[in-house]
């Protein structure tokens, strides 16, 4: 497990959920999460993937026509003790 996460943000909830649907069959884990507070985003949902898969995730979403707003890399260790993020 990487000590950071690639966080994808989206222009609307439709695109965030579409991204989740498209990445469901990907060989890596893509989790839908609320947008972390320190990020600015157009909608409240984001997708988290291991940074090692950032490029392939971006490509998969682009191939499926899913609009991404931005991609952020956030460190994992600053997350709370429940470790969900």
């Amino acid at each position, binding site marked *: 497990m990487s000590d950071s996460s690639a966080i994808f943000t989206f222009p609307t909830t439709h695109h965030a959920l579409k991204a989740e649907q498209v990445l469901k069959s990907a060989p890596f884990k893509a989790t839908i999460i*609320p947008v972390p507070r320190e990020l600015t985003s*157009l909608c409240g949902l984001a997708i988290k993937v291991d940074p090692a898969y950032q490029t392939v995730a971006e490509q998969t979403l682009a191939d499926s026509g899913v609009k991404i707003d931005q991609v952020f890399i956030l460190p994992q260790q600053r997350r709370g003790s429940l470790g969900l993020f």
Partner: protein
Amino acid sequence: MIYLDNAATSWPKPQGVSAAMSECLNEYGANPGRGGHRLSLQAGRALLETRDLVAELFGVKDSAQVVFTLNVTEALNLAIKGVTQPGDHILISGMEHNAVARPAFSLADKGIETTIAPCSATGLLDPADVEKNMRDNTKLVCINHASNVTGTIQPIKEIGKIARKHEALFLVDCAQTAGVLPIDVEKSGIDLLAFTGHKSLLGPQGTGGLYINPEVEVSPLKQGGTGSHSELMEQPEIMPDKFESGTPNTVGLVGLGAGIRFIMKEGMDKIRRHEQRLTRELVAGLKKREEIILYGPASPEKQTAVVSFNLRGLEANEVSFILDQVFDIATRSGLHCAPLAHQTIGTMEIGTVRLSPGYFNTIEEMKAVLDALVTIEREGSTYE
């Protein structure tokens, strides 16, 4: 009860529709797209599924271009009012429903003129009459895919080509055809496609929508919360949120998804063939009778499962009332919210009785209706 008012709303619905709606309401009835909790996500995913199904049905590549509305009337209002500016011209046909005619003519005080391309006595629009009525300032051509009065199917592909040639937008009212006739927005050059969920798509009332070509600029009818871009005072420009302010009819849209899934599973071809058989039975039975005046193409290949007629010597409303009260057969009579269509077929003063069977009707039921009409004709005066 023999239900023959499917052109108004389809009934009964496939079993899966109420089951899916009940599951949504009871198991995950949260607000979609308004939070990150799991129920909200589940509701959001269900909405996405229906949006994807609608997109697949109409050959739409990006389902974000499908906007949900309350019904086809709202979708048509959004399209007609959202693309026109003062000085523009709108061309509609002589078979349009008031859902098209009223919003179009309401724009007259903004300097937007609407004119009508005439149709034949059976309700058919000749593409040459579209061509003839195009103007330099024609912004929008809006055509009923099939009439709710006569079932007449219009040649939308040919009309779409004419609209494109003149650089006008092409809006198709698919209220009567979505779910029963194959529709491909790209092949037919459709810029805007308005549909309703509760007729041939077999979903519940309170569902419908508009497909918008990504290259077409449309202004929203309403502004409000979208669950996105919340810090901005302006309405977001991004689809589908631009047109979907406020909490959607999630439960209804889940039901619509179940309706579309039923159609895809059964096969649209099979549904259409069955409805054609029913239409053929009605048309053949009515044609034989001298006292019946039959309207429309009287050909199952040229119409949807909508058959309008009058019985000489009796008012349409009376025939429909007797069919219901005495024979337990539900039909609709009158002008069917489409006075233009009645002007075209010559029934403005008297209206028609409309029989609109659906996929769940049987040939035996069609025979029962024809028998009932024989009895009404014979006994007519006793009901007066």
